[in-house]
């Protein structure tokens, strides 16, 4: 739709605006805009500027180390990598079905991760834009202002995260580096005391999730036309689905629908993903561009994550979230919802589903079972796929006779959304920046579009002292026309 803005014809003659780094996202990315003399946008790109080298990090390691090791790939969603790797290693040790207790523990941990991740994104990253406006003063668009002006909202967000972290801690035994999932199962049962500890607050957490859903619904509909149009692109959607078409984040087949809601493929065994997906490399970004091979590069790109999952499923198997899903879809025209900001609404529907699911699991007798590990016949290869908070996550390993990983391929959620994020910023650049004098508020519109996807560009390194943000406007000859600098305290100066 906006691919004409990917590469300008005469880039050397255009003004260049750089947003570096994109703020309030996980990790480091930058946006470049090329403008002509009248400030018409001719090119817009989201670049991922750090090569992560995940696969190289993994190769040569013993396979049984992977579920723990891969947690260090990303400090933002270590549990997602942990579980995707564990599922792949289950196949390597010849296990295709866990014990009921082990599966429930993994699911509970996964729901805890979703809850805390979605809460962080919504309350910390998204609400400053949504509550105060995209072009409100930069110093106001942060969690501190939310805590000051909406203290209950801010506090509930922090406590929701804490609860999710507690779920993870009790299952894995520690906050991080836990070895909860092991090849073929889990290494620790949940005690009655631990279960009861989580039970005592779950109804409160569920209430907070309902509040958050009501908040995004109210904010979204209060300026409905603007929110629907902002970053609006039409795309395919892909994600996991349960056999009966239910919403699923831990295990299922792959389903893809086109922009009209027609099925492209359904309930595919994800172990055959190499037969349906391709990854294109482009010279200007370290992040690849995946697409559905049958549709080709131009038409085969897709979105994953909350919006894709809500659009793709036939129903959500918990009552409150299902009611919310139906309400959400009723805002559309009978087909999938496409607006980029609808990701936020979908994300809070999922959060509610997580709280409902945690409550169900905590009441399930099998959760306290102590039969946790299954053994099988060693295999040379394993593919693990889960729905991470940000979208579908693939881990694929080949292991030699010495138990060492010889090949690893990871497709992370943000990579699936690469083309879509680029399309969204081009739509926003065309709609809001084209022909305008560039301001910090307008540039934040670009970032708002990116944040909707909750991209994780993180490499889990965070050493202090690396937080620059400089926006430079250069003329065609390379001379600087304008320069904005944002300091660590949030103040902006020219």
């Amino acid at each position: 739709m906006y691919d004409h803005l990917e590469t300008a014809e005469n880039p050397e003659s255009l003004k260049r605006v750089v947003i570096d780094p994109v703020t309030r996202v996980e990790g480091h990315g930058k946006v470049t805009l090329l403008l002509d003399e009248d400030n018409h946008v001719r090119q817009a790109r989201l670049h991922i500027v750090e090569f992560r080298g995940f696969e190289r990090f993994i190769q040569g390691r013993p396979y049984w180390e992977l579920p723990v090791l891969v947690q260090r790939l990303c400090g933002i969603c270590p549990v997602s990598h942990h579980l995707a790797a564990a599922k792949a290693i289950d196949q390597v040790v010849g296990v295709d079905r866990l014990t009921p207790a082990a599966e429930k523990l993994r699911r509970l941990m996964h729901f805890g991760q979703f809850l805390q991740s979605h809460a962080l994104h919504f309350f910390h990253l998204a609400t400053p834009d949504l509550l105060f406006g995209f072009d409100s003063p930069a110093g106001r668009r942060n969690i501190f202002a939310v805590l000051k002006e909406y203290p209950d909202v801010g506090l509930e967000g922090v406590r929701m995260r804490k609860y999710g972290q507690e779920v993870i801690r009790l299952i894995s035994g520690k906050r991080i580096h836990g070895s909860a999932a092991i090849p073929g199962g889990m290494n620790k049962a949940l005690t009655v005391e631990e279960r009861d500890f989580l039970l005592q607050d779950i109804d409160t957490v569920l209430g907070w999730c309902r509040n958050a859903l009501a908040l995004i619904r109210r904010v979204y509909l209060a300026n409905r036309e603007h929110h629907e149009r902002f970053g609006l692109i039409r795309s395919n959607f892909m994600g996991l689905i349960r056999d009966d078409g239910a919403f699923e984040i831990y295990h299922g087949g792959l389903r893809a629908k086109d922009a009209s809601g027609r099925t492209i493929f359904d309930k595919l065994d994800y172990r055959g993903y190499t037969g349906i997906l391709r990854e294109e490399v482009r010279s200007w970004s370290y992040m690849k561009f995946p697409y559905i091979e049958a549709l080709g590069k131009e038409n085969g790109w897709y979105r994953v994550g909350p919006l894709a999952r809500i659009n793709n499923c036939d129903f959500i198997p918990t009552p409150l979230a299902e009611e919310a899903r139906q309400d959400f879809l009723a805002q559309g025209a009978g087909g999938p919802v496409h607006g980029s900001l609808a990701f936020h609404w979908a994300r809070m529907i999922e959060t509610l589903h997580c709280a409902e699911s945690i409550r169900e699991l905590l009441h399930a007798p099998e959760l306290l079972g102590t039969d946790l590990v299954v053994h099988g016949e060693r295999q040379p290869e394993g593919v693990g796929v889960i729905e991470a908070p940000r979208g579908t996550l693939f881990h694929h390993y080949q292991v030699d006779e010495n138990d060492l990983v010889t090949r690893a391929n990871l497709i992370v959620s943000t990579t699936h959304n690469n083309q879509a994020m680029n399309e969204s910023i081009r739509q926003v650049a065309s709609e809001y920046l084209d022909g305008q004098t560039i301001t910090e508020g307008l540039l934040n519109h670009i970032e708002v579009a990116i944040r909707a996807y909750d991209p994780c560009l993180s490499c889990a390194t965070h050493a202090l002292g690396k937080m620059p943000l400089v926006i430079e406007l250069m003329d065609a000859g390379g001379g600087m026309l304008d320069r904005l600098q944002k300091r660590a305290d949030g103040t902006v100066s020219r």
Partner: protein
Amino acid sequence: MAGLLVFGYGNPSRGDDALGPLFLEALQERLASSPGGDIEFLQDFQLQIEHALDLAGRDRVLFVDAHVGCPPPFRFERLVPRRDGSYTTHAVSPQALLEVYRRLNRGEPPPAYLLSIRGERFGLGDALSREAESNLESALRFAEALIRKTTGTGWDSLPSGPDQKYGFSLA
């Protein structure tokens, strides 16, 4: 709840970013022989807003992190709450965390200090650099003496500033 919280953070698989976690593990070991009994150790990949809840009820908090810009071997400083524009959630600063605490609790956070240990390289899969290893040892000697020999506001009387090699004065 222990009066002193020592919070080391960083990614153990990212070269010198491991300084925070390595510091924490080594300090625990060193203090184990003569336990003060009133210390809790906390480790994570990075600071997040909910960590503000871990600060409640403490007498003091010591954050320990790798730093690419401080003078080697380390820098020790008293922190004050600050609204900063933490650009990415994984870069929530300890000062910002204290500010989150103020907003959440409507009160002042406990006295908090940051021990920044100079790091050089942060690539995925990198080993700890030799420089960082040396800086870590200096920081450990400093912190061990700090915790053993000083209490309460005594921490604030320590010299500070980028040019001071004060770690050795207490060792």
